[in-house]
């Protein structure tokens, strides 16, 4: 499926604003995102938002729904976006975190939804040989299980770091923690993950 003529306007003014470090909508232009702009944003960030949700929930289906919820909210809220408080990505993930919080509030027991059967049904990743695909599936299963060993905060930071691709500095800004504190918790989380992955001995680290 094509990206519904996302490229039709050469990524439009919004895309231009995303280039470079600014990634902002200027105040003068901030009349909200157009359809093309939100689709462009979707094409750019749906992957990292999905990865963030999957790291956070371990639920592949819910993560798909949550991604779309986030982008609809972002579209609704775009007229009020204040670039002075952060760039688009930070704002996007602020909405994502709030969406996740609402979701977890109702789904109190988070458990991985990726069973062995699910994993077997997964489509093979593009451009990979069957052996590599099988190894990747095994890695994902192991990691999904290992993530359950983390507490909420550790998991949240792992999701921001490795799902969303934030630096510790940005994560500190997002979470209100100090950068040092973020680093300490991440280190602890990695240690736990490593321990559980070693126990499973199914992921090559």
């Amino acid at each position, binding site marked *: 499926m094509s990206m519904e003529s996302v490229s039709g306007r050469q990524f439009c003014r919004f895309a231009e604003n995303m280039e470079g470090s600014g990634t902002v909508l200027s105040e003068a232009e901030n009349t909200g995102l157009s359809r093309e702009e939100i*689709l462009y944003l979707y094409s750019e960030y749906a992957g990292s938002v999905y990865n963030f949700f999957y790291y956070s929930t371990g639920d592949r289906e819910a993560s798909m729904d949550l991604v779309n919820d986030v982008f609809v909210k972002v579209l609704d*809220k775009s*007229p009020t976006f204040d670039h002075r408080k952060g760039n688009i990505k930070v704002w996007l993930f602020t909405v994502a975190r709030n969406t996740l919080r609402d979701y977890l*509030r109702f789904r109190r027991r988070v458990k991985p939804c990726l069973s062995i059967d699910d994993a077997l049904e*997964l489509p093979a990743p593009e451009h990979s040989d069957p052996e590599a695909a099988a190894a990747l599936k095994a890695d*994902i299963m192991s990691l999904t299980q290992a993530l359950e060993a983390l507490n909420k905060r550790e998991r949240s930071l792992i999701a921001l770091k490795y799902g969303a691709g934030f630096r510790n500095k940005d994560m500190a800004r997002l*979470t209100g923690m100090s950068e040092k504190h973020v680093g300490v918790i991440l280190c602890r989380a990695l240690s736990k*993950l490593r321990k559980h992955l070693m126990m499973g001995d199914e*992921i090559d680290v």
Partner: protein
Amino acid sequence: MYNIEQDYTDLGKKLESMDFYSVLADRESMLKNFINRLDQREQRSKPVERRRSMRPAAIAAMITVITLLTGFTVFADGINGLLKQLNFTGGTANKVEQLELGEEYPPDADTKILLEGFEYAEESEGKSESFMEKHKFASLEEAKDILRFTMPEPKGLNNWELVSVKAFSNGKEIYPYAVELIYDKLENGDWQEITGAVPQSDASSSVFVYMHYLGENANVKIDTTKDIHIVPLNGIEAVLTGPLPYERGKAYGLTWVQDGIAIKIFPSACTYDDFISFAEAFVSAGSE
């Protein structure tokens, strides 16, 4: 020589390389779904048409926000028998009025209790304009001022904080209530408006505002009436307050306890079966 830092670096690289999106997500159906939602959103752009096009899913989403522990006034005559039926107290009537969640259903140390206060505010055309002006609350006091009603204190809660404010407007369409505005408190203490729409009200409609509090150690009292019905939900007995058969506007509460949390939903506009199905989605079998 073993190098633990190198170990973590390797694991970090491994995690960075994990692209769940390309492996697990059905990207095509996601995009289709998203485009459909964009289409629907555009269709709903006119306020009047918007409510007409509210779908059951949207109504269900509206109901979800009404999760609470009740700190409300109790109809005392009904509550003892009710709680006995539900084995909330082991049949000890004296404990009912002092029921402590922490005693009966010890939550773990991190468990917080959700309490919702409810207030009703008349809203007229002119006032709704001022409602639109502010999108964030700098403080609880500011929220009070802007919302222009007296905030109900969450009785029975310790160390509470207000975590969200949700506004519903009712119209004259088929579905009388629509979620219009949600403010959520961010971890840094700021308030953020989550939904885009602002209550659309006129002289004949109203705005309901729900506030969600997060706190500890609530004294649980169940809000009910003389008409009590027990409804099985995935093996848990829930209390349906209001008369049967279910009719819109008459049945006004479904309450159950799960994981030490009393959960209550208010129906708005859906069939009884839809209502119960919706509730079942939030109940884990055998958790009580």
